[in-house]
């Protein structure tokens, strides 16, 4: 747990920015009250230390020690064509672009969406869709998670997406967060809310990318509510600048017979932490949490997943793979809680890591807490290197050593990439994986 000294000093360096924010236009009174409560919680919690079990392998002191400036006004200078590399070649997606944390309508294209679908930036939602906006902060546990509390205190922009009952949104909705050189030494706290109505279906892609090599801090939170019988596919693409810090939490709540399919791709940032949490709060739900992290150099990349089986007859499937080179450090912690009532739970979790160098390392920790007696829950973790026999086999067919290594590295990730249902995303991430370790 955090010491009071650390907590006090953490809040101290943020209090100036916070006072300035709440004294300005920072949303309706209900939002300002929530900000104050959240800031108090952040002040009490402080930044997590490695004595906190959930942060045992990840020290956030590089974030805590830095004095980030809240990017509070429009500061970006990004041209439309600069976004092309981040669109996966797709031209017909519904896209909301955020530059340095702020919504940029001139770069966004959501006009082709059905008028039944509500899609707004957070600030507009406060006035134009207050019912939806009121859900912000009701799904995440910001009272007990430092970074989510910090986000709730400082959130200024984000996407509020409301898919009405029975609506099938065919094309992906892309929330594209881009930073440029103006983000240097800045922090942003994107806050997204995705509400999927009964029997509706949608795909949301959330990208964090940069056109610069600036050092900045993204602290994103996405809340997801999936109503009965609905499906949400959620792809998170973290390709932040190499000196950046990224903490991102996706937290979902699923009603009866709903499905949540999540994929987390993480290859950027100097230090990153990705949380993917879901609560199966109705019978007959399914959740699939997959991911791939690619790290090299001195990068540190941490994933924590949490599946709460709160009702019977639900399944969860989890496959996370990591490829680590250089002196990078990967962390995977997969939590599965099965409540006493959640009989017939069917859970499977797998984490496989490929180490490409002798100096890369992974800490992997499955964490299953099962309080029901009629369940099927398995987990497995492997850590390995390139198979020398396979390498020689490829070389003996005339494929040069470097190409053979690339092919085997890609092959390691192939099965988890195969699970991606949006072909353009799958192809794009396959290419990134092939090209990453040359």
């Amino acid at each position, binding site marked *: 747990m955090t010491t009071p000294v650390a907590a006090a000093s953490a809040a101290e360096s943020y209090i100036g920015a916070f006072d300035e924010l709440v004294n300005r236009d920072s949303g309706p009174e209900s939002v300002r009250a929530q900000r104050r409560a959240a800031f108090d919680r952040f002040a009490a919690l402080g930044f997590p230390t490695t004595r906190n079990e959930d942060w045992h392998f990840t020290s956030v002191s590089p974030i805590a020690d830095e004095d980030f400036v809240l990017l509070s006004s429009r500061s970006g200078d990004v041209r439309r064509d600069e976004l092309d590399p981040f669109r996966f070649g797709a031209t017909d997606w519904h896209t909301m672009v955020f530059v340095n944390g702020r919504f940029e309508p001139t770069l966004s294209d959501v006009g082709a969406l059905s008028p039944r679908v509500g899609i707004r930036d957070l600030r507009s939602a406060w006035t134009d869709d207050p019912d939806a906006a009121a859900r912000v902060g009701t799904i995440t546990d910001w009272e007990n998670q430092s970074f989510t509390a910090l986000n709730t205190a400082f959130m200024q922009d984000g996407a509020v997406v409301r898919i009405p009952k029975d609506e099938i949104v065919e094309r992906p909705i892309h929330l594209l967060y881009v930073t440029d050189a103006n983000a240097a030494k800045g922090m942003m706290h994107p806050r997204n809310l995705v509400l999927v109505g009964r029997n509706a279906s949608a795909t949301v892609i959330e990208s964090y990318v940069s056109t610069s090599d600036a050092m900045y801090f993204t602290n994103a939170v996405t809340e997801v509510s999936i109503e009965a019988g609905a499906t949400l596919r959620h792809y998170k693409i973290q390709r932040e600048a190499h000196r950046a810090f990224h903490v991102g939490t996706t937290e979902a709540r699923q009603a009866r017979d709903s499905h949540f399919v999540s994929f987390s791709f993480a290859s950027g940032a100097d230090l990153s932490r990705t949380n993917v949490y879901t609560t199966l709060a109705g019978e007959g739900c399914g959740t699939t949490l997959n991911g791939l992290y690619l790290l090299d150099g001195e990068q540190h990349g941490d994933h924590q997943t949490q599946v709460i089986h709160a009702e019977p007859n639900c399944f969860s499937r989890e496959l996370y793979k990591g490829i680590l080179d250089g002196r990078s450090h990967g962390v995977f912690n997969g939590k599965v809680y099965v409540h006493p009532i959640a009989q017939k739970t069917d859970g499977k979790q797998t984490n496989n890591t490929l180490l490409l160098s002798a100096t890369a390392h992974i800490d992997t920790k499955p964490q299953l807490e099962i309080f029901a007696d009629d369940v099927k829950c398995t987990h497995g973790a492997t850590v390995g290197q390139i198979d020398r026999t396979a390498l020689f*086999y*490829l*070389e*003996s067919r*005339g*494929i040069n050593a470097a190409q053979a290594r690339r092919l085997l590295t*890609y092959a390691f*990730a192939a*099965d988890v990439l195969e699970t991606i249902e949006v072909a353009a995303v799958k192809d794009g991430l396959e290419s990134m994986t092939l090209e990453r370790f040359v």
Partner: protein
Amino acid sequence: MSLLEIKGLRANVGEKEILKGLDLTVDAGEIHAVMGPNGSGKSTLAQVLAGNPAYEVTGGTVHYGGKDLLEMQPEERAQSGMFLAFQYPVEIPGVSNAYFLRAAYNEMRRARGEEEVDPLEFADLMEQKLAQVDMDPAMLQRSVNTGFSGGEKKRNEILQMAVLEPRLAILDETDSGLDIDALRIVADGVNALKRPDNATIVVTHYQRLLNYIVPDFVHVLANGRILKSGGKELALELEERGYDWLTSAPAVAGAGAA
């Protein structure tokens, strides 16, 4: 100039010496059988020729097409037309057989200064090669050797051989684990590839395969050296008498090798 000329070859696996001064010469147009009991060094010879870094060459010379083979990387050996059909073909989940074959084929073409072929051209070529080894085209879409039966794996090796058209093919225990039908398909594949300008070394424990792939020369390998060489009738003699008459009498064996 011989296609392959091995002189006094010595090789270790770890600390253990497996090949202890092996001599063998293979000319274009020939089929050589290397036979011997388990542990005699047959597979080591095959792996050393293909360049497996798990084996350490400690002495002797190997010339292939006039070049110093031991100085060549495994992929250079392959690009120069050497092909090893593995005793235990390796499973590579995540890489499709089609992609793998085309990548290998294009590497060969590049090495010869020829244009690469695109997937469509390659599909035409594959249709013919698949028929040659009686293989289901569906096997191309599966990951390399992954979940293949023993016979399917061996057939996949011969398919690769048919696609790559080697100058020197080394078949390492390609007959082990095959039923007679599969054995005949494999043998037919090998025989169909025989040309005056290429050669084959068949490494085997049993004479059975040699009913279908008829060798010009038979060599008995034991304790890391060639103990005896002869024509195809030597294989029949070995089938009849086993290997003991050669290996249990060191004095005779020594005389034979000298």
